[in-house]
């Protein structure tokens, strides 16, 4: 099955709406990665020039940026939500809830819209379809903050873990690091988006593709704002005194595969999972909470009435 056939199966040439949120500590190359992905200076460079200011403790400063992309003929309206400030405090315990609230807020908007009698035809669905979590390249394993974030959010959003600045690690170190991360994810029972494939439903090629992508998890990411001339071609790359790292080179990192996952091959699946599974789960929880509250309220009303027998 060719690329165009797959696209036709997954939704064709309509302009798609796709929302992603990117989470990770400062300096991991999140903005650079997004700009590399969209080939456009989507997220402005965050340079703090006042040394006295930028070390204050803050909340997460959630900001959304929208850009139009065209990947393999597939037009998309991509919204990227950035979360600067995450994990930067001495005590970052409150940051998880800040991000969770944002995601749930988008679900609330859809819930409210669905319940309206007269719906807004121009309603923009801003539910988050995928969360890219950037893990710092320590080479060891997941830290407490990584585990906590993914654990708390995996029930509300599809998570794709990525190793940031992967050019810090030698190939051997990278392989061992990836293995330990996936072990930690399994032990902590974190559900990440692991390219699920169904033997009965999918054909061999799709299954093969998904298994290959699953084996790449977590994706090794390298980003660059600069382009260099390498062997006569202009490429996005990073220049070191000892060599050049090419962002699009599949031997150097996994950006090429990640880009096709995020901008063409798995867009539909991520959206479906968000709507059919994650949103539905949130909806039933929320509604049963409201039901529970309504029941309690009714009980309290009855109790109040019983205590005042004279007033009817």
């Amino acid at each position, binding site marked *: 099955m060719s690329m165009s056939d797959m696209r036709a199966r997954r939704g064709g040439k309509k302009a798609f709406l796709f929302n992603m949120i990117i989470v990770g500590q*400062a300096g991991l190359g999140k903005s650079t990665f997004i700009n590399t992905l969209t080939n456009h200076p989507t997220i402005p460079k965050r340079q*703090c020039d006042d040394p006295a200011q930028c*070390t204050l403790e803050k909340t997460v400063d959630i900001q959304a940026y929208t850009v139009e992309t065209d990947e393999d003929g597939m037009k998309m309206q991509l919204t990227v939500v950035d979360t600067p400030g995450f994990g930067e405090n001495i*005590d970052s315990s409150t940051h998880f809830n800040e991000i969770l609230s944002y995601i749930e807020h988008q679900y609330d908007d859809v819930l409210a819209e669905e319940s309206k009698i007269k719906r807004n035809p121009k309603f923009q669905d801003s539910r988050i379809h995928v969360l890219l979590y950037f893990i710092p390249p320590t080479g060891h394993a997941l830290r407490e903050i990584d585990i*906590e974030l993914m654990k708390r959010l995996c029930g509300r959003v599809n998570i794709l873990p990525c190793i940031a600045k992967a050019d810090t690690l030698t190939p051997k170190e990278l392989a061992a690091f990836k293995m330990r991360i996936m072990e930690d994810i399994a032990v902590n029972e974190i559900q990440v988006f692991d390219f699920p494939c169904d033997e009965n439903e999918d054909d061999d090629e799709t299954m093969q593709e998904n298994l290959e992508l699953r084996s790449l998890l977590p994706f090794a990411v390298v980003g660059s704002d600069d382009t260099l001339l390498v062997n006569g071609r202009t490429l996005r790359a990073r*220049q*070191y005194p000892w*060599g*050049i790292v090419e962002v699009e080179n599949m031997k150097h990192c996994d950006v090429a595969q990640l880009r096709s996952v995020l901008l063409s091959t798995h867009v539909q699946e991520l959206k479906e999972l968000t709507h059919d599974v994650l949103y539905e789960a949130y909806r039933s929880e929320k509604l049963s909470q409201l039901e529970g509250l309504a029941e309690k309220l009714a009980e309290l009303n009855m109790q109040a009435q019983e205590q005042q027998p004279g007033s009817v």
Partner: protein
Amino acid sequence: MATNTKSIGIANLPNQTHKIVSRKGTTFTVMVVGESGAGKTTYVNTLLTTTIKSYRDHSKRRDALSRKTVSIDVIRAAFDENNFATQLNVVDTPGFGDYVNNRDAWQPLVDFIDGQHEMYLRQELQPHRDDILDGRVHACLYFISPSGQTLRPLDIETMQKLGSRVNLIPVIAKADTITPKDLAAFKRRIRDAINAHNIRIYAPPVESETEGVSERNQAMVDAMPFAVIGSEDDVVTPDGRTVKGRQYLWGVSEVENEAHCDFKKLRNLLIRSHMLDLITTTEDVHYEAFRSEHVSTDGRVVGSVARKDAKFKEEEDALRRRFAEQVKAKEAMFRQWEQKLIGERDKLNKDLEHEHSYITALTQEIKQLEDKLNKK
């Protein structure tokens, strides 16, 4: 004062001092502080060209995470180079900065440094002080994550607390993450942040009488914070040299190549040229500051809080081990006694049986004789 034009040999004193010092040897203590995965262990092992500090045991990582503490580990090693003996101590701080909540993570570090000063002070005030154990920290390497941005709140707070107590040397590890252009900007932002927050870092003396040394020292100061790459492995560069470095698919970053990182400068600072200055600054500046606050005018130690530092932990461990050994020895003794008693019992049982069978035999004989008698 009379001046003497003939030499009497006083100029030979430095040589005598050299002999005395080289015979006595020295102690040098370095503390390494930084998040897990910052590159501390690799750096220390690269610096000392031996695996003095063991790498993290990943199979135990879940227990470490659940404990949520910052601990102090002291690794001691004896070095002997050209007949000069050095007792080298490396103080590690596992758990620092590793958690979601790192409030007061610097407290155990500060307690340790102050505790060492206090230990020295108490020994110094003793009537007999010829065998003082000196565990004072001479240099503290603070490892900054190579984010490329600037210092974080935890870095600022910790460096402020450390800088006033010990020679603080900020270091950027895993320097092969950052391109040279970004590295220069990063260093500049760190220096600005250090100045803006009044953090005291170690400033090596620049001026020197020897030619060329002043320039070298100035270059050293300009390069701070040092960006280092660590590696214990030998790799082969594309042009055929075998060096200590890291092998990537796109090239080899070399530890000792000054164009790649500042490893050589930091090694010179710590060992080759400024080790003595680090030691004397610790003694003359930091220790004296501690002393003036903690010794009253009649010579007693005041203001010390009972702190649980590494020395006590070591003693505690040693006592516990001795106790366990004694218990084991007693148990072994008891078991031996038990065996002996069992042996005795068996022997006595056997004797009893023997006697019993003898009695039975005799009774039989009597019976036989009686029968015989009766028959007659």
